[in-house]
């Protein structure tokens, strides 16, 4: 019977380790492919006009270091600096929110990085608010040097 006890003990230890790791909030649990798929589906970036005409409930999250975004609607906006995104208080606010989470920051880089982090932590309805329109479109047309380009110049 002693040997059975040893097996049960070993099994219990493993079970405790596994369960504590499954419920550890400080871990990324989502598969990376989901981030790319969500990013390719274009609905996750909206402009300020679209925000005004939005019907669903949302929470506006200001990621700037010091708050810059004007609060049109103070009830559903909150200021969480990017450094504090993973603090327990911030995570509680984000988890208790029912609608969508709209990220805004003056620097586009901050909101993009925060979007990926939140997406991989399991939040499914995160949107980025763009100040300027269509940032990911090339604004300049390349003029090829027609002396070198022997083939036709039409695109």
């Amino acid at each position, binding site marked *: 019977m002693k040997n059975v006890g040893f097996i049960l003990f070993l099994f219990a230890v*493993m079970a405790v*380790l*596994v369960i504590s*790791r499954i419920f550890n909030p400080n871990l990324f649990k989502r598969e990376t492919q989901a981030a790319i798929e969500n990013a390719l589906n274009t609905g996750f970036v909206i402009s300020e006009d679209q925000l005004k005409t939005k019907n669903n409930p949302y929470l506006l999250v200001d990621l700037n270091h010091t708050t810059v975004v004007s609060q049109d609607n103070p009830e559903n906006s909150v200021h969480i600096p990017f450094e504090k995104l993973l603090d327990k208080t911030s995570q509680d606010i984000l988890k208790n929110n029912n609608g969508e989470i709209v990220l805004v920051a003056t620097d586009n880089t901050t909101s993009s990085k925060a979007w990926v982090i939140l997406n991989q932590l399991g939040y499914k309805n995160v949107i980025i608010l763009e100040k300027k329109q269509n940032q990911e479109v090339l604004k300049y047309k390349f003029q090829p040097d027609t002396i070198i380009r022997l083939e036709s110049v039409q695109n």
Partner: protein
Amino acid sequence: MGPISVITELPEWLDLLIAFLIGAGFGFALEQAGFSSSRKLAGMFYGYDTTVLKVFFTAAIVALVGSQFLDFFGLLDLSLVFVNPYYVGATLIGGVIMGAGFIMGGFCPGTGICALSIGKIDALIFLFGGMTGAFLFAESWPEIQTLAMGSYKGPMRVEEWMGVSPGIFTLILIVAAVLMFWVAELSEKKFTRPDISSEI
């Protein structure tokens, strides 16, 4: 050593030493299981001795369970582990050839080296035959290239093909293995050959 992330910064000599010790342990385990005897291996085919099945399946399952747990706790990066690319035709034909050789010779390559290390001459001839086969394969590569590289399916893993998570696949495999061991026990009782089993 390999993809275990906590100890990747080891100096190279320590890496190689660990590899050597693992290899020595493998040889030791094979020898003490009695695999240097070709009758034990042929017994797998005739049914009177199913040690090979049990040892290799247990080893595979322990490795599977161990690596899954290490991956789960972040110590091992399973995506770095090399998965053999799957060529359908080549695998089938290779399997048939190897199986036939296994039964005829009574050794597989690993156990052949074990037997050689204890001085068996038939193991020496077996390994020599194996190396000749590999040499012929390399020499005739241009002719058999299309067959060998046909129906390439990429590095497939069974759990991806089945569409289940790796943990569930592990459980299925363990249950299947236990059932196979039980059937193996029955077969040992049925196909018993006391004249051979008593000697090995």
